[in-house]
């Protein structure tokens, strides 16, 4: 995969824009997922995907291939996400609740289980999604990268330019916060009520 990416990058640098389209098709979903879990709504996430690939195209000559292309994209996308979140915080114009209403994730496939069970599962997923969005941004980004994008701690450290120990600490604190916010769900499970 990385060799294919390297070849597509090389072709793009030689002027073949169709090769860059291949990279976009390959990775737009991952970038969108990161953006969606960080920003919480579909519209901003779509804009961020576009901006990430535009910036990546412009700076492609600086991509040194010591990390994977996806890791490099995540670096650009996470910086843009953090900028966006800070800008939002500064404006404080929109409440998070409104944004979340706009960008609900699609309902999970109800065919895999009964409709009642699927509804409960969707509700839990919604609660988890909200809990992630309520984390401070520095904790949110590590949780999303580690547990949703399945990146290694070392890769996260490289992308965020943080020491590995700091990433682990942020992960631990983020999970503890999530545990606190998901306490009602966890207690329901412990009490034997199916979730």
């Amino acid at each position, binding site marked *: 995969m990385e060799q294919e990416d390297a070849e597509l990058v090389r072709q*793009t*640098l*030689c*002027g073949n*824009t169709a090769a*860059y*389209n291949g990279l*976009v*098709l390959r990775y*737009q*979903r991952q970038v*969108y*997922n990161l953006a*969606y*879990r960080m920003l919480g709504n*579909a519209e*901003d*996430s*779509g*804009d961020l*995907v*576009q*901006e990430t*690939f*535009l*910036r990546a*195209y*412009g*700076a*492609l*000559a*600086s991509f040194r291939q010591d990390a994977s292309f996806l890791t490099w994209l995540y670096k650009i996308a996470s910086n*843009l996400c953090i*900028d*966006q979140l*800070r*800008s*939002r915080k500064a404006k404080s114009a929109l409440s998070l609740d409104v944004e979340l209403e706009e960008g609900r*994730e*699609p309902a*999970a496939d109800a065919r895999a289980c009964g409709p009642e069970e699927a509804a409960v599962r969707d509700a*839990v*997923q919604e609660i*988890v*999604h909200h809990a*992630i969005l309520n984390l401070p941004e520095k904790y949110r980004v590590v*949780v999303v990268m580690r*547990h*949703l994008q*399945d990146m290694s*701690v070392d890769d996260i450290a490289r992308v965020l330019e943080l020491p590995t120990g700091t990433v*682990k600490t942020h992960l*631990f604190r983020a*999970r503890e916060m*999530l*545990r606190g916010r998901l306490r009602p*769900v*966890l207690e329901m*499970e*412990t009490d034997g009520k199916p979730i």
Partner: protein
Amino acid sequence: MENRFEHTPPEGQGGWGAYVTPPAVPGQQQNNAGATETQAQVGLCAHVQDLLPALIENDGQIRPEMATTLYGHLAVCKACAREFAEMKRVIQMLAALPPAEMPMDYSGLIMSRIQTEMLSVPGLVAPHPTQAAARPGFGPSVAGAATDTREIEKVIAVASPHFATGAVPSVATTTRQAAGTTAGFASAASVTPQTVAELAQETRTTMRTRERLTLAGIFSALLALAFTTTWGRALLGANWNGVSEGAGQVGDALRHVPLLNWLTVLAGAALSQAGGLVGDTYRSLGSLALQGLALDIGLCVAMYYVLVARRQRGQRLGL
């Protein structure tokens, strides 16, 4: 997906039951006294709970024998077992979140924006010198500039300054403006390796300078008119006489305030004197029309450089 739970207990042998007699955890004290035992147990649980995140992450910090010991403790300690189960459950909940479904395929939009916003503006973005050289409109100096990645990143950053504020569409506007202001530049056969953004900034600065020079010229002409015409001089003289008289009246009024008597006398005299002095000065200048005009223009130019040019420089530096 990497296995984060490599250190799993042997479920086939009864799960936690396999560890009903756990080996000693480092730091654990064997003590039979009731209170001391409880204290030691609390300390032990705290120690185990500190290690649980590393056990969950399976990050190499926990050796196999330590993992066995920890699982042994979890088998007999309900509090720690619950803590561990909750940590794992949170991670499972996170992992169970489905990937968000993209509302559309962005590739067409991205490639179209690359074509219109980046490739259609010579000098704005050239991912590689070979591409720059291959495309018409790129002179060698632009190709050379394109190899400087810092330059490229700067251009991209400038071309998309509003994303952070949420105004993404303005990227296109900015780029089009930049392209428009440098239309002549784009068609030139030999171009300098300046970026479009810098050129646009320079153009804006030049326009501001022209506007301000024009205003300064109009202002100078009005002042010159006031100084050099009879009615202008009379107007200024009358005004300064009025100022002088007004200042004198203020001084007189303040003199009647008991506590400030001596001070108001001085202030009134000073104001009156100053008013008279300024009035006389302006009348003298007015009588010397040519000198007045020269002084006026000189003052305006000096004011322009001190106030306007300094501000422009600050704006250019982003201050």
